[in-house]
């Protein structure tokens, strides 16, 4: 059990080292926690999973994966009371948090307290925490078994509920929306015990006499109390609050604002025909010349169909100086061009006679109206191209654009822009796994998952789905991989040479850039990832093969589009995407500042 003895034990290590029974329990725990607290970003705010072996008084003993607590002091006076906290405080993004404690034995006197407490200042000395029974100290809240009283940061209790003893299951529910807490006994709610709770409380138990033993359930097992039913009620309440939120006071103001947002979105993505029609029927002016829109549309089409060389050329023709002023952008476009060469789609290699894979046709001639160019088949939600959770304030970081395959996708609130801890190692370990070509589907799925974790954008549930969905693009690719293997640069030797030559140019361009503008880790990674494609005999099925996916053209396309718009003093992001991004950021901020209602208001729920 050494693997997780340190309490905070991250899931990964347990999965690797634990025995199978433990695996099962962990799996169930993870599933339940995800279902109960979908809005929590555990990279930022991990959920309590066990008692902390560090954050306890010496009279407390832990066992059974740090879930069982027993008293090992002499228990003569109330001063011998001792308590233990869970590994982590309760994240506000839970909205409603719940854990249960089963009384295994009431011991000598059954002086047990169950509740919550705040973290002390000094972890080594623990001066302000005497570890008395839960509820006796400052910012400590407890419900005591011997008298059924509730204790709120003081030694004198209030009559609260029934007493509890051996065999009883006591639950503690924290409502982070209205900052209250209630307890349950054997599945029955006992009513509000505390109000005006402070943030960042830890699940806590306190014991006081020998023989007292309690087991915690942080989600390892089904709860006795139907907490999900309670959460349903609050989800309904929050959603009703949102639905009833008063909109603009003045007649028609709201409607015209919505229309403007839609129109600007259409223009931004160069859906010129639709934008024109929409503007006409809603009586609006379009703030960009039609020709300009058409130009952008043309470039976008080229990027989305993988013809990067032509795209760069056209851009330079239509918008001279644009790329010169943006060396990083140009570099990104060139890297993409390199990838498209590997793919055999770029015009420079295509004209060299290589057989082009079908995937070049994956984008229809014109962008589909009302659905973003985002080629996401797994759901019907129109993901907004160009949206990035980092840039709602107008500050775009190119990093996330270039290295994240899904930076345009609205992130789950709270999971925002954090980098996972294991950034590099995963690639390596994954590549050692055997790949068989008749297993393409599964393996692709697998790798996409793994790779996603190594890229800069946290959790992505969409990606894996994307590859297995019978999307027109993917379907084609699958068919092909089953019949004949895709070939590097379309199979033409000349094209390969051209590609290698181009690679060298790219390398020197990168060096030049570094000299001129200083180190850029994003650029470096981008180039490294692109070159990695050549390390595999079948780049499409390699751990870095995701880069060849047509969907990866989208962030490039939207970055270029934004840059063009910027030169015309037009917003580089459509207001609609900004609004969505801002909403997601607000939710993430709510999670950080302790507003629990963010748990029940996912932006995705409103993007039908």
């Amino acid at each position, binding site marked *: 059990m050494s693997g997780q003895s340190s309490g905070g034990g991250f899931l990964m290590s347990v999965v690797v080292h634990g025995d199978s029974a433990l695996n099962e329990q962990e799996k169930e725990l993870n599933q339940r926690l995800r279902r109960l607290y979908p809005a929590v970003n555990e990279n930022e705010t991990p959920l309590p999973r066990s008692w902390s072996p560090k954050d306890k008084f010496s009279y407390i003993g832990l066992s059974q994966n740090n879930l069982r607590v027993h008293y090992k002091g002499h228990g003569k006076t109330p001063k011998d009371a001792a308590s233990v906290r869970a590994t982590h405080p309760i994240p506000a993004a839970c909205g409603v948090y719940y854990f249960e404690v089963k009384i295994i034995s009431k011991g000598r006197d059954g002086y047990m307290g169950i509740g919550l407490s705040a973290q002390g200042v000094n972890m080594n000395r623990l001066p302000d925490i005497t570890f008395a029974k839960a509820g006796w100290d400052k910012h400590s809240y407890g419900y005591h078994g011997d008298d059924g009283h509730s204790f709120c940061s003081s030694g004198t209790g209030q009559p609260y*509920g*029934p007493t509890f003893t051996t065999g009883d299951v006591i639950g503690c529910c924290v409502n982070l929306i209205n900052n209250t807490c*209630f307890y349950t*006994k054997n*599945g*029955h*709610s*006992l*009513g*509000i015990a505390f109000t005006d709770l402070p943030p960042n409380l830890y699940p806590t138990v306190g014991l006081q006499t020998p023989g007292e033993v309690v087991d915690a359930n942080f989600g390892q097992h089904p709860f006795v109390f*139907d907490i999900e*039913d*309670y959460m*349903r*009620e609050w*989800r*309904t309440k929050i959603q009703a609050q949102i639905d009833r939120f008063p909109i603009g006071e003045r007649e028609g103001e709201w409607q015209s604002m919505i229309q403007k947002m839609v129109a600007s979105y259409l223009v931004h993505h160069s859906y010129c025909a639709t934008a024109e029609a929409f503007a006409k029927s809603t009586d609006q002016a379009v703030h960009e010349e039609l020709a300009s829109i058409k130009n952008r549309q043309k470039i976008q089409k080229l990027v989305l169909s993988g013809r990067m060389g032509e795209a760069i050329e056209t851009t330079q023709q239509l918008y001279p100086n644009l790329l010169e002023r943006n060396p990083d952008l140009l570099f990104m476009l060139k890297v993409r061009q390199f990838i498209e060469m590997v793919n055999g789609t770029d015009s420079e290699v295509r004209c060299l006679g290589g057989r082009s894979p079908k995937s070049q046709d994956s984008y229809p001639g014109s962008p589909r109206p009302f659905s973003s160019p985002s080629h996401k088949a797994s759901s019907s939600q129109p993901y907004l191209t160009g949206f990035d959770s980092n840039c709602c304030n107008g500050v775009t970081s190119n990093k996330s654009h270039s290295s994240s395959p899904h930076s345009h996708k609205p992130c789950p609130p709270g999971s925002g822009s954090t980098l996972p801890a294991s950034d590099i190692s995963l690639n390596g370990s994954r590549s050692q796994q055997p790949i068989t070509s008749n297993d393409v589907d599964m393996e692709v799925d697998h790798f996409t998952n793994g790779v996603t974790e190594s890229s800069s954008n946290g959790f992505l549930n969409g990606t894996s789905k994307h590859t297995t969905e019978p999307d027109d693009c993917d379907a084609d690719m699958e068919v092909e991989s089953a019949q004949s293997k895709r070939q590097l640069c379309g199979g033409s030797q000349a094209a390969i040479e051209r590609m290698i030559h181009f690679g060298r140019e790219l390398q020197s361009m990168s060096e030049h850039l570094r000299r001129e503008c200083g180190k850029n880790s994003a650029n470096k990674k981008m180039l490294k990832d692109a070159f990695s494609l050549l390390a595999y005999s079948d780049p499409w099925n390699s751990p870095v093969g995701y880069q060849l996916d047509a969907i990866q053209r989208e962030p490039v396309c939207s970055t270029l589009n934004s840059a063009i718009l910027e030169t015309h003093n037009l917003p580089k992001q459509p207001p609609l995407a900004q609004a969505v991004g801002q909403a997601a950021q607000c939710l993430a901020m709510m999670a950080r500042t302790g507003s629990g209602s963010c748990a029940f208001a996912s932006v995705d729920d409103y993007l039908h």
Partner: protein
Amino acid sequence: IFVQLETKFRREVTATSRHYVDRLFDPDPQKVLQGVIDMKNAVIGNNKQKANLIVLGAVPRLLYLLQQSSSSMELRTECAVVLGSLAMGTENNIKSLVDCHIIPALLQGLLSSDLIFIEACLRCLRTVFISPVTPVQLLYTDPTVIPHLMSLLSNSLRTQEYITQIFSHCCKTPEHQTILFNHGAIQNIAPLLISPSYKVRMQALKCFSVLAYENTQVSMTLVNVLVDGELLTQVFVKMMQRDQPIEMQLTAAKCLTYMCRASAIRTDDSCIVLKTLPCLVRMCSKEHLLEERVEGAETLAYLMEPDVELQRIASTTDHLVAMLADYFKYPSSVSAITDIKRLDHDLKHAHELRQAAFKLYASLGSNDEDIRKKITETENMMDRIVSGLSESSIKVRLAAVRCLHSLSRSVQQLRTSFHDHAVWKPLMKLLQNAPDEVLVMASSTLCNLLLEFSPSKEPILESGVIELLCSLTQSDSPALRVNGIWALMNMAFQADQKVKVEIVRCLGTEQLFRLLSDPDTNVLMKTLGLLRNLLSTRPHIDQIMSSHGKQIMQAVTLILEAEHSIEVKEQTLCILANIADGNTAKDLIMTNDDMLQKIKYYMGHSNVKLQLAATFCVSNLIWNEEDGSQERQDKLREMGFVDILHKLTQSSDPNLSDRAKTALQQYLA
């Protein structure tokens, strides 16, 4: 001038109304149709216009057109729509429509094959039947109606909604339940619980709640019903989920409550303990509408009435006991000042809230001492009960006295809070003039207040309660007779001679003996108990026996000779033993050889209790240190009692053998 204008205006309105009615008589059917359509548009939301048209006789003509098979389907449908619109008006409108025999006409219309027409008829019928002024019996007059309605259920969402709504409003008696049940209501309505339409689901659910209420047959059937492969109880549980509309949660909880009370679901079933009960407790919380809180509290009281475990769980759930205290705070002082509408609303529900809270307290405290303590310790609880006992609303008075009765089962409360708040005063007042149901509760509570340890006993005695109780023993209601005699029995326990004499005087020996032959065993037992309490302490025994000895001995003989339960006979032998304890009263037994033979018989009875009571009697007769004990001992020895006593010393029952030994010792001295 204003009056003139007003009159003129009214005349004009009447004139246009008349015009609408006249057009119904046009020879051209097309013009009639247009007339009906215009009328439809004119009456929508216009109660005055509706009343005018009714007064001008539009209804019979519309009904005529509706029933005429020569009328076009369109015309008939429009007629039904207009009638439905008229029904939406005031209660007077409904009365007029019913008086014009609209119901049979519309029911007849349901036989049509045109769905739109049927729906219009059903909508109108629905509106008529959900009005409190419509006699529900009209739905059942023609026996073919119910089966036909059942068959229409499958036609459309609208027919489903209207028909289930009619059923749920017209199912008021066990007979109605049986009729609907026999025509397949359960099988026909169950699938509607998962209808895509919320209205249909809700009305279907309501149907089940009225069908299952106090109906074992329906309830037993319901537990086995499957809806789309799922047990009905589970469907109800899902409807109680906390994200469902409150109305649905509450009605589903009612269904499960009724099924549970009809013994179709055990009280310890998780769907009751973990779902229904918590749901009903939630309904009592402040965040819900007053109506919902009333219904929630009443249903909860009904659910847990017979089960102490449910009472215990409820008493600790969500601070229910404290939560109920809020029921007494309407109309709140805030509502009175700020908002007249709110005040009106609060006033309307204030009585209902209070009576529901009393009912729930009564149910909560009916078995568990700790819960009773918790209730009486709730803020101003006793004051609220006291004022509740004298409220004008009979419902509140009844509920208040029920609550008091429940709490009066607590010895501690009788000794403390009951006395402190002089609850006996309003209780006595209540007993003076009240309907039987209130009297039963009040007198039952009085019984407890008259227990010897109750400090209220004295003041009650002084308030002339004896006469009142004696009159209760003459009631036709067995429950009132029991309570009357029971209270007298409690009162006579260890009472002064004066009180006992007063009881006997007031009750009269005639009434006493009538009660000894009461068909209700309970009454008989309590009367014997009264006799036994009267006949205690030697001077009292002799005094009463000297004046009523003959009749009492007669009554004792009669009871011992008749077919009665062991308990009755035991009680009677105890009375005899008490008589045997008197100084002069002894002779009444000693001179009655027949009675002595009876005592001998019961000493040899197979039931130990009777043997013990009879032995007591003998023991008292032969007790030393009393005048004439020697003679009595001799007589009984002659009669063979000593032999029996010897035998009884060998009894396996320690009490009996001890008692026999003590008796024999009298001979040794």
